[in-house]
């Protein structure tokens, strides 16, 4: 008799499992507030590709425009009205959208923040470890500079939490090298044109510098150095396709690319689907660790050669997938098509 009950329960459990595993009917909402930036576009494409590859998403609902925290709150509330099952959000501000995220959780929606932190405690966060990103690159740069000299510190967008986390890592490395001085600190706003203008302005002052740390606006900085025939000082950037190509090809350029995959958006979709299927992660915050590829040692050169991908847009990070978190193919992310497109 007992065995019968056990078997019955087992069968019931199995049928429940299979029904949830094959439910291809989730709707996932996406909210992003920077449009026209290569990294963010790759993030959106990774979200689409992962939603398609997972087979569990019926529809994506993407709110993607240039706006502020108030505008993002509006988008999140619209996604609540659209009755999505989960929201993947790249926050405009960690605190500014807290009320809207809390409303989403209250409405039974799974909230996953990607790329940057949020203050809302009910939200799950999957992010690149931004502090470590800056620390790795800055430490390598200061070593290349011989532990002394002037560094140009080209940050991201003022007030973005990714930027303030990176600032912590940069300052941590700076503290280890007391003879390195910050000659100039600028905010590129993660805009190519702005970053290039700033470095050209700085070169024009004639003040010497010994290294440049960038927050991912990198290939235009190398372009500016080459065009203005300024000394090719070591440059640290992200793993953007254009910059990785330059590290392989520009004569005399010493530099390092620190990985910061935009495919974190796809990882956000995977995390959201896991939570929807009842597998909550042990912690609210999941961090993806960066690695550094430099062109000074042979081992580093080999890594860079392997990573280079001229078929990608120069502003796209070459790390288009994250092991264990994304399952799409390169063709799928480049095609940038979501379910039903």
């Amino acid at each position, binding site marked *: 008799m007992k065995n019968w009950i056990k078997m019955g329960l087992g069968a019931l459990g199995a049928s429940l499992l299979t029904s949830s595993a094959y439910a291809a009917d989730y709707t996932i909402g996406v909210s992003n507030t920077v449009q026209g930036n290569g990294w963010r576009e790759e993030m959106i494409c990774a979200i689409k590709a992962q939603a398609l590859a997972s087979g569990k998403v019926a529809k994506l609902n993407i709110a993607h425009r240039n706006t502020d*925290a108030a505008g993002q709150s509006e988008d999140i509330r*619209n996604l609540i*009205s*659209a009755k999505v099952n989960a929201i993947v959000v790249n926050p405009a501000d960690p*605190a500014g959208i*807290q009320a809207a995220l809390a409303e989403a959780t209250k409405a039974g929606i799974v909230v996953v923040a990607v790329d940057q932190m949020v203050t809302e405690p009910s939200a799950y966060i999957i992010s690149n470890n931004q502090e470590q990103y800056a620390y790795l690159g800055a430490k390598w740069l200061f070593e290349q500079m011989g532990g002394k000299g002037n560094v140009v510190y080209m940050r991201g967008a003022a007030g973005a939490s990714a930027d303030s986390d990176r600032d912590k890592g940069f300052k941590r490395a700076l503290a280890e090298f007391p003879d390195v001085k910050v000659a100039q600190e600028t905010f590129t706003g993660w805009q190519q044109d702005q970053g290039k203008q700033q470095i050209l302005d700085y070169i024009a002052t004639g003040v010497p510098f010994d290294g440049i740390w960038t927050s991912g606006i990198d290939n235009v900085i190398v372009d500016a150095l080459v065009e203005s025939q300024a000394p090719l000082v070591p440059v640290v950037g992200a793993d953007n396709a254009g910059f990785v190509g330059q590290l392989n090809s520009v004569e005399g350029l010493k530099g390092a690319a620190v990985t910061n995959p935009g495919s974190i958006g796809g990882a956000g979709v995977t995390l959201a689907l896991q939570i929807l299927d009842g597998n909550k992660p042990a912690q609210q915050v999941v961090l993806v660790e960066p690695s550094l590829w430099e062109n000074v040692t042979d081992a580093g050169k080999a890594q860079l050669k392997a990573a280079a991908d001229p078929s990608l847009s120069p502003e796209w990070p070459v790390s288009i997938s994250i092991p264990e978190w994304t399952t799409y193919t390169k063709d799928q992310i480049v095609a940038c098509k979501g379910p039903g497109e």
Partner: protein
Amino acid sequence: MSRFLRRHGWVVGLSALFVVLFVATRIIQPGYGAGDFGSLVRAVLPYAFAVAAQTVVVIAGGIDLSVAAMMAFTSVTAASMMAGASEEYAIFVVPLVLALGFVLGAVNGILIVVTRVPDIVVTLATLFILQGAALLVLDAPGGGVAEWLKGLIIGTVPIPGLPDAVTAWFPKALLLLVVLLCAVWIPLKRSRLGLSIYAIGSSELAAFRSGVPVARTKILAYAIAGLFAAMGGLSLTMSTGIGAPIPGPYLLASVAAVVLGGVALGGGRGGLLGPIIAVFVLRLVRTDLTLLAIDPNVTAIVEGSIMVAVVMFGAYVTIRSRAS
């Protein structure tokens, strides 16, 4: 009745458009209800104050490009003053920030009147100045806000004697918006100053020859715009809990809503109700585009096309009715 329609045709048409859009929203998303309407009103708040500021200036024959920057500046000022301060301290902060907006607006007006540099140039300059000043106050989004201020726009207004199903449609944010706009606009419209604002917008020379103090009127029009912009800045801080030094997308949105609201860009004609309903229409269009999951790169094109289509249709109807 026909006289009413002729005088308020534009507002009636816009309201009808809003109702049609609302019904369409209910069809797209059958569950769209009172709570979602509350979200819409909260999204409308900063835009509504920005457009109110722009409306006053445009009716006076000018244009204020510094609206969004002034909102950012007043927002960070309020947020940085309230950070870590007591709840009571905010009672002192709010009037101070409103006064700050009024004074900054007046400075805009004084510069225009005294230097005789065109409005568009002066307010473009103050846009940059205020943007920089906002970054001096807070170099990154931050600060705080008193809980009671946040509470002013969350939830619904309990009206005694009405069932919850009805009061659910009266969000506090709507009450705040209506009260603040009416408190400034109705006395203004009925005063000599209000009449003078319309007069200088219609024809500065004619107004001057009829004895309207043109300079003073213009300065006050900009000052009132500054007051509305400060309300917009406060509403931003109230809805996000922080102050952000980089201006949001409120400048172009304010001009768009002014045009859609039936205010002549040349000045002298129009009211406040039209632009405010226009803001509701534009935000609801955004909601519908999100609900329909339209390709995000297309949404801005759709929004722009709808706007130009409505304005052209309105102009066509106006010309036709004049001809007949």
